[in-house]
């Protein structure tokens, strides 16, 4: 019993538990804000009004076409440049230049664009018959959206959105490669690199960090699969998400 807990791998898992919470914190904050942003952007891109569709289209293209790594650097340095002139006088510089704020902010902006593209694709493939049926029974625009567009969009987009959330979780590693680490607020890869620099035992520390990523990814798949089952329960067929690398992002 004693020997299992003293095994270096288990000790690594214990050490890396708190850092894993930082990765989870970025994810848990980015998903609830990124989801509504993505839906709004997708509806904007799908709109017939050019004034709505053009900005949404440009936003999505820009954030999908550039690396998240650069986006982190750009927004963080922009916030640093605004610090003396704007944030300091307002007294909010403690917040605006903190990685725990900028990190989720940029992740929200990024996942908003990626998920919007997924939702936009889903909006394009909503069965036409259902929209026509909604119009035929005299539904208002809002009723049509609520009964025909929204449920179909969610159902069609859900597998790809699950992949996006897992990707988002993996992207959280980039936060502390672009921003300073403040008082031991280290994420998985920071801590693993720190442990590596102490004893140069690469395989041990990196595989412990990798195990955390794998397990949390599988948990995300599991949770999203439960939601997917619920979204598709009216179809009366067994569906489930497959854990496989996606290549559509």
């Amino acid at each position, binding site marked *: 019993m004693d020997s299992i807990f003293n095994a270096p791998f288990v000790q690594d898992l214990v050490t890396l538990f708190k850092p894993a919470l930082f990765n989870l914190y970025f994810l848990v904050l980015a998903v609830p804000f990124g989801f509504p942003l993505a839906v709004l952007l997708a509806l904007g891109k799908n709109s017939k009004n050019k004034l709505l569709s053009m900005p949404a289209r440009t936003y999505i*293209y*820009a954030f*999908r*076409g*550039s*690396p*998240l*790594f*650069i*986006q982190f*650097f*750009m927004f963080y*340095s*922009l916030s*640093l*440049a605004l610090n003396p002139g704007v944030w300091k006088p307002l007294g909010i510089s403690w917040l605006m230049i903190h990685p725990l704020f900028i990190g989720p902010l940029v992740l929200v902006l990024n996942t908003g664009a990626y998920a919007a593209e997924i939702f936009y694709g889903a909006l394009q493939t909503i069965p036409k018959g259902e929209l026509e049926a909604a119009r035929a029974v005299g539904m208002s625009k809002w009723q049509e959206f609520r009964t025909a567009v929204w449920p179909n969009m969610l159902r069609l987009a859900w597998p790809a959105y699950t992949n996006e959330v*897992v990707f988002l979780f*993996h*992207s959280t*590693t*980039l936060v502390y*490669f672009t921003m300073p680490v403040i008082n031991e607020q280290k994420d998985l*890869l920071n801590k693993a*690199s720190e442990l*590596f620099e102490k*004893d*140069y*035992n*690469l*395989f041990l520390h*990196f595989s412990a*960090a*990798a195990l955390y*990523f*794998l397990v949390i*990814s*599988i948990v995300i798949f599991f949770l999203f699969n439960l939601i997917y089952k619920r979204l598709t329960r009216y179809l009366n067929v067994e569906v489930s998400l497959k*854990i*496989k*690398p996606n*290549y*559509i*992002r």
Partner: protein
Amino acid sequence: MLEMLPHWLSDWLGPDGMANLAYITNGKHLSWYASVRYTLIAAAFGAILAVFFGLLGAAAKLSKFAPLRWLGDIYTTMVRGIPDVLFLLFFPLAFEQGVEYMMAQWYCKPDELAAATTWPLCANVQWYLSTTEYMILACVSLGLVYGAFAANVIYGALTAVPKGQLEAAHAFGFPSREVFWRFQVRQMWVYALPGLSNVWLLLLKATSLLSLLQITDIVSWADRLGAPNYSPVAGLVHGDWRWKYYLVLFIFYILLTWLSEKFFAYLQARAGRGMARAN
């Protein structure tokens, strides 16, 4: 150098314009522009290796030999659960340690090896990597990580090749090996192109991570050039301009993406000649 500009151009730019031009063409900025080569080389060779590993991975996934199939499946699922950054850091370090371990077997004395508790195993087996070596390792890591993505794309494309074509090849008496390489692989490209285009775009964006491997690429130059400068000796005195330099990189990558999309659309149109289309 700037004196060589024609008069009409220098007149049109004015003194301020000329000062700006002098600033953005000074030595440091020229080094920044030149460092784009690392990004492009990593993208190009990473992509070639990714297609290579992708073909191997897909062939393994389709193999009749079960352990090889498992290996292919493990390879492609690994990237699903683990971030690419971790691999990008892990592979070069693992390779470096592997080489140092082999060097240690050769150079270290047995008693030194036995006493060694930490790295390096003895004093004279430290391998210092230069930018060239890091570039090679970066290309291989990019190839390995995105090769797993490519393997999935190619696997899907290989199974999308019409069965009749392969059966016809078999009927003509081609051995299975040749049917695979001469018919299935030849024909799968057109099905694989859209997916490979996406993998290329992912890989292109991942080339921004080169600075994590101690390569002074465009990102680390942008950081240096934009850092505030208060000493006139070191050049133009300016505040924190980093966001401007990162904005340039932001636009640079969007342009690269746009160009790639145009190129792949052209390739797709070319590869699809003579194919029956649904629309």
